[in-house]
């Protein structure tokens, strides 16, 4: 059963209102996105900056509201649960944020940071909450836990802070964990720790994870399936094992090629895309990728490709079977 089902979701942000505050233009941040995440899987979303992946994460955890479409977690509409039973909603889905520096109130200790959600929900007393926090720190291998409970965030390294953020997200035993770029602030030599921790947590808790990242290697390593986003749309969904060798969409191929530059992991010529990502305020007609695609034809310029399914994967490209 799918734990998370995203169907045709739209989120537009108004820009440059006129003097009466009416917006004439919109950033098409998330523009008709659909996918579903099975229970217990780690599902990845990749894309470059401005493709809408972070907005998508914020929509799913309910930090912002979607304009149209439907997001269901365990069969329940997010907008509904959020309105009717916000307590339960918070216990259903939690997030690990991107920036481990700004995610902490600099004036509060780790103890406060970890016990606060437990005190707000779950009806625990102070002492119980502290002992839960203790366990959580041990779960993310921050030991001795007592030492870390009394620290202020700035006394911890970036990697340690990232562990605390994971612990906090797990504190309410959510069914779905959304991790937004969990390792992008970390140096290469310590990234592996957090990657392994996420894997471990996933395995032990059987928790479903939505992993958002611009880093292909991380997504490849951790996920079972991957959605590739470009300018607010999902252009391809594929099995992670196919990412480096069997992707169908020309954008995915270019992304793969540019990411593994130097390491020679991708086969064949390095693909250099022309031009840059167009503005999400006025996305191109037809296929959004056509101005940068070297295969683009007239159809691509005029007609938006319908997402096609084949062998359980999705690709939104007019030409995928001809490439």
């Amino acid at each position, binding site marked *: 059963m799918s734990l998370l089902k995203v169907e045709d979701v739209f989120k537009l*942000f*108004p*820009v*440059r*209102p*006129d*003097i009466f*505050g009416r917006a004439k233009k919109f*950033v098409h941040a998330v523009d008709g996105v659909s996918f579903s995440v099975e229970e217990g899987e780690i599902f990845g979303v990749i894309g470059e900056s401005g493709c809408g992946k972070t907005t998508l994460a914020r929509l799913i955890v309910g930090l912002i509201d979607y304009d149209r479409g439907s997001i269901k977690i365990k069969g329940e509409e997010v907008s509904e649960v959020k309105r009717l039973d916000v307590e339960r909603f918070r216990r259903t889905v939690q997030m690990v944020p991107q920036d481990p520096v700004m995610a902490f109130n600099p004036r509060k200790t780790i103890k406060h940071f970890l016990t606060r959600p437990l005190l707000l929900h779950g009806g625990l007393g102070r002492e119980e909450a502290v002992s839960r926090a203790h366990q959580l720190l041990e779960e993310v291998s921050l030991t001795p836990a007592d030492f870390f409970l009394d620290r202020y965030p700035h006394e911890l390294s970036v990697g340690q802070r990232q562990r605390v953020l994971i612990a906090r997200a797990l504190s309410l035993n959510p069914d779905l964990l959304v991790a937004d770029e969990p390792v992008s602030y970390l140096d290469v030599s310590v990234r592996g720790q957090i990657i392994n921790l996420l894997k471990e947590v996933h395995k032990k808790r059987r928790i479903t994870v939505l992993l958002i990242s611009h880093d292909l290697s991380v997504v490849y390593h951790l996920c079972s399936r991957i959605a590739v986003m470009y300018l607010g749309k999902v252009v391809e969904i594929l099995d992670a094992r196919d990412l480096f060798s069997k992707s169908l969409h020309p954008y995915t191929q270019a992304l793969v090629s540019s990411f593994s530059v130097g390491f020679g992991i991708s086969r064949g010529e390095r693909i250099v895309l022309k031009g840059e990502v167009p503005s999400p305020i006025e996305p191109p007609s037809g296929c959004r990728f056509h101005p940068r695609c070297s295969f683009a034809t007239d159809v691509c310029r005029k007609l938006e490709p319908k997402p096609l399914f084949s062998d359980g994967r999705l690709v939104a490209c007019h030409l995928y079977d001809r490439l």
Partner: protein
Amino acid sequence: MSAEYDFKSFLLIKVVRSFVMVFIILTIGFLLIHLAPGDPIEFILGGAGFYTPEFIASVRERFGLDKPIHEKFVIYVLNFLRGELGYSYVFGLPVVEVIAARVPPTLLLMGTQLVLVIVVGSLLGILAASRPHSKLDYLVSSLSVAGISMPIFWLGLLLIFLFSVSLGLFPAQGMTSLRVTGWWEGFLDLLSHLFLPTLTLFLINLGLVTRTVRTSMLEALRSEFVVAARAKGLPERRVLFRHAFRNSLTPLITLIGLQLGWLLSGAVIVETVFAWPGMGRLLFTSIGSRDYPVVMGIFLLVSTAVVVSNLITELLYAYVDPRIRRAK
């Protein structure tokens, strides 16, 4: 998402806002007149005892004082738009004429002083910021904070004592001497009268400008495009002026443009100390002689001037910064 406006709307918003501001200031003036103890006719005529009852009645009618309050307000606003602010009780003339005669001396004083302060203050600020923590920087910074902390009237008195009483170099009172012949002598006479009040205002505001420029320059000099400019091998002077100073202009414009009211209040005191025949001195004497129409008139005029200068400031921002001007 923060609201970004295109430049035309931006302009329009600012102009509309300025009109609203003037309207609000008028309302405040109206409320003050009507809330203050005493008959509002006094605010228009001054002491009512000098006029015949018929005349008072006619003025009452003209200013709609016999009408209900909202009509009074409309008449008041319309009068303002026509430039009718009542009559000065002391001078027996329309307030507008009384004030208009006093505007040029104030403009002369403020203008001279502002030009000097902006030039010298900017240079000192740039100099101090280009050598942070040097002796020069400490000296400039200390003098700035001392200047800002100096009560303006006290400084004026000290300067009078020094230049006028002890050294006998410059006159301490007024704008012109009585017996002067020829335009050249007249000009020199004016300059010598201008010296002390200008110096007083200059010294006070110099600290303000220097500090502002120093702080914003320090920030600009820390920015990465300054590093890039240095990496291009540009001479330090060019880095300072073309790259850093241009980028640190906004706070200076803010200081001058948005603090006009504050700068003018210094002028009131200085004009009083040096008996300079400007608006500030007029305000002071009018308060003393309870010439309410003039007091209110000056308040409205100064407030409107401040609103206009705020508007000009916004336009200057756009002139300095293409990111505002060229927002597509």
